[in-house]
Every structure is written in structure tokens, then in C-alpha cells.
């Protein structure tokens, strides 16, 4: 039980794909102009990670070692196509905003990385927990970055106005440079918190 819990929470902080492992950065930077986009992209990616991890874990003894990467990519691409079509049908607005980055979940290194590093070596249940943890770790990172950029860039959070009328907003935060700068500063803060935790533990 303790081990399962560890697997689940690993992706949330210590092994956070965005802030710690620095993988799958393209959607992190590209879609986080608003908090809602961050949640949408995060949950879409979580679905793909969980489903493909479970399926790959089930098939891990069937897939020959030499062709495993193409096999994984096919599995992932299938789930990405499902997400793409479902979002297009039921959430057309969000689909429009995320656009190109939905099909690009296929080449998101987190998905293939978890398939290769975890699902191909572990059981179905553990792989599912790992997928959920990683996916939610990715989702919270995207949502936080999205909320910060939305607040500074247009004065709203989740579409609700939070700054007073007439207050100046920093337009550049909604533009590409803001994405890089926000991520850089957040990573610095994460490093500071971790260093402090380590010091306290000693």
C-alpha cells in the first residue's frame, strides 16, 4: 500500500515531469496563456498517459524488445486520435484553442518516457498509478503557469476578473516570452523550497 502511494505521488513533486525532469515542455509553454487551457491540456495528456501505460503494461510480455518503440508509438497515437476526435466533438472551443498541440501529445516525451521507463517493467495497477501521478503532476504545473500568466497578462483567473478596473496588466506575459520567464522563475522557486526542505531534514 505504501509503495502504491509512493508511485502515485512521485509525479506530483519529486519526479514532476515539468519542473524536475524538464520533459514535455512544448505544451507547457504553448497553451498556458489561460488556466483553463492548462487544465484541458493536462487532463487530455493524463488520459493518454494512463491509457497507454495500462495497455503497454498489459502487452509488455507480448511486444518483442526490438520493435518496442514503434509499438509504443502506435499505442500512444491511437489514444491521442481518440482524444482529438472526442474533444473536437464535445469541447470544440477548447479543441480550437489547443489546436496543433492535441495531435502533438504523441511526441510528448512524458508519455513515451513513462511507457519506456515504467510501464514496460511494472504491473498494470502500478503503471496506472504512475500514469495518474505523472498526468496530474503535469496538469497542476500547467494550471499554475496558466493561472499566473492569465493573472499578470490579462488580469483574470479562470476567466474571472480579479484586478481592479484600470489596473495595468503586463501584456507580454500572455505572449511567448512570458511563458519562458514564468517557467524559469517557478523552477527557481521550486529549487529554493526543495533546498530548504533538505536543510531542515539534515
Amino acid at each position, binding site marked *: 500500500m505504501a509503495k502504491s502511494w509512493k508511485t502515485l505521488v512521485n509525479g506530483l513533486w519529486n519526479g514532476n515531469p515539468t519542473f524536475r525532469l*524538464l*520533459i*514535455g*515542455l*512544448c*505544451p507547457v*509553454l*504553448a497553451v498556458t496563456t489561460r488556466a483553463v487551457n492548462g487544465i484541458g491540456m493536462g487532463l487530455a495528456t493524463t488520459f493518454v498517459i494512463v491509457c497507454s501505460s495500462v495497455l503497454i503494461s498489459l502487452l509488455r510480455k507480448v511486444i518483442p524488445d526490438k520493435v518496442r*518503440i*514503434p509499438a509504443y*508509438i*502506435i499505442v500512444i*497515437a*491511437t489514444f*491521442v*486520435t481518440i482524444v*482529438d*476526435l472526442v474533444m473536437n466533438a464535445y469541447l470544440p472551443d477548447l479543441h480550437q484553442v489547443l489546436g*496543433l498541440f492535441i*495531435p*502533438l501529445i*504523441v*511526441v*510528448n*516525451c512524458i508519455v*513515451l518516457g513513462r511507457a519506456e521507463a515504467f510501464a514496460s517493467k511494472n504491473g498494470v495497477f502500478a503503471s496506472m498509478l504512475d500514469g495518474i501521478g505523472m498526468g496530474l503532476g503535469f496538469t497542476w504545473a500547467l494550471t499554475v503557469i496558466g493561472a499566473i500568466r492569465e493573472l499578470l497578462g490579462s488580469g483574470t483567473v479562470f476567466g474571472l476578473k480579479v484586478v481592479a478596473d484600470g489596473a495595468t496588466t503586463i501584456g*507580454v506575459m500572455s*505572449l*511567448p*516570452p*512570458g*511563458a*519562458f*520567464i514564468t*517557467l*524559469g*522563475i517557478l*523552477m*527557481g*522557486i521550486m*529549487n*529554493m523550497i526543495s*533546498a530548504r526542505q533538505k536543510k531542515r531534514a539534515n
Partner: protein
Amino acid sequence: MNLFLLFLSALLVNNFVLVRFLGTCPFMGVSKDVDSAFGMGVATTFVLVVSAAVTWLIEHFILGPLSIPFMQTTAFILVIAALVQLVEMFLHKTSPGLYKAMGIFLPLITTNCCILGLAIMSVQNAYNFIEAVVFGLGAGLGFTLALVLMAGIREELRFADIPEPMLGAPIAFICAGLLSLAFSGFAGLI
């Protein structure tokens, strides 16, 4: 003239890394020194041009006539993976020198999202064959430019006095932000 504008827009105005955020992982991963950044850039440009041509042919001669657009993502990523493998084998046999320079970067390119992104974008924008290839070339050179510039900055950063929590990736991201800000100055170009 249109082709030139397309090229310039892919190279500078809508730079794939700094404005469109495609290929950010190698941009952060392989920009520690100028030589490897240049190698990665050239290898990516090469694959981008070839895959732009091949995916255009796939779209117009296989997916289009069979009307199976929903297979686009799957078909493209498979073709790209196979193509990268093929290029690697071809270079290995024909020019060991070039293979040595580009070889280690090639396997990484499959999961570089600018390759698949470019293929999907040129379908969405309904480019013809020549336009797709020029778009690929511009995007590749833009990627190389961004990577080499970033590597130059990071080589200098090594000697800078940076607060401890910001060392490494965080400060690199802030520099990338400033670089991106500089690139947004190109927006008036077209």
C-alpha cells in the same frame, strides 16, 4: 516572392522554437555548447525538409484519396520514425564523417515535436509541394538559429554569478524568454 515570405516567416517571425514552442525539449537539452547545438540544428533541418516532402506525398496520395484523415497522426508519426531510422542507416553507410557529426542526434529527432508539428501545419495551411519543402527549410534553419544563439548565451552563463536556486535550467529559461522577446521584434517584418 511568396515563397521568400513563407521562408522568412518560418525562419524569424514565427520562429518554431521561440514563438511557436515546437522543439523546446532539444532546445533546452542540447544547447549547452555551440558545436553540438549546430550539429543538432543541421540534423533536424535535414530531417524536417525530407519529412515535409514525404508527409506531403503521404497526405495527397494516400490519406486524401482513401479519405482517412483520422489516421493522419498515426500515419505521420510512423513515417517520421521510419524516415529517421532510414536517414541514420543511409548516413552510416555512405558518409561516416557526416554520420559521426549528426549520428547521435538522429534518434532524438523522432520525438522532436517540430517535425510532426510542421507536417500537420502544412496540411492545415494547404501548402503545395514546393511551399511545404520551403516551409520545412525555413523552420529548420530557424530552429538551428535559435539553438546556436541559446548555446552561445549558455556558454557565457557558466561564468556569470547566478543565485543558487536559479542555476542551470531556471536561468536558461529566463534567457530564452529574453531571446523570444527579441525575436518578437521581427513581427513587423512581414
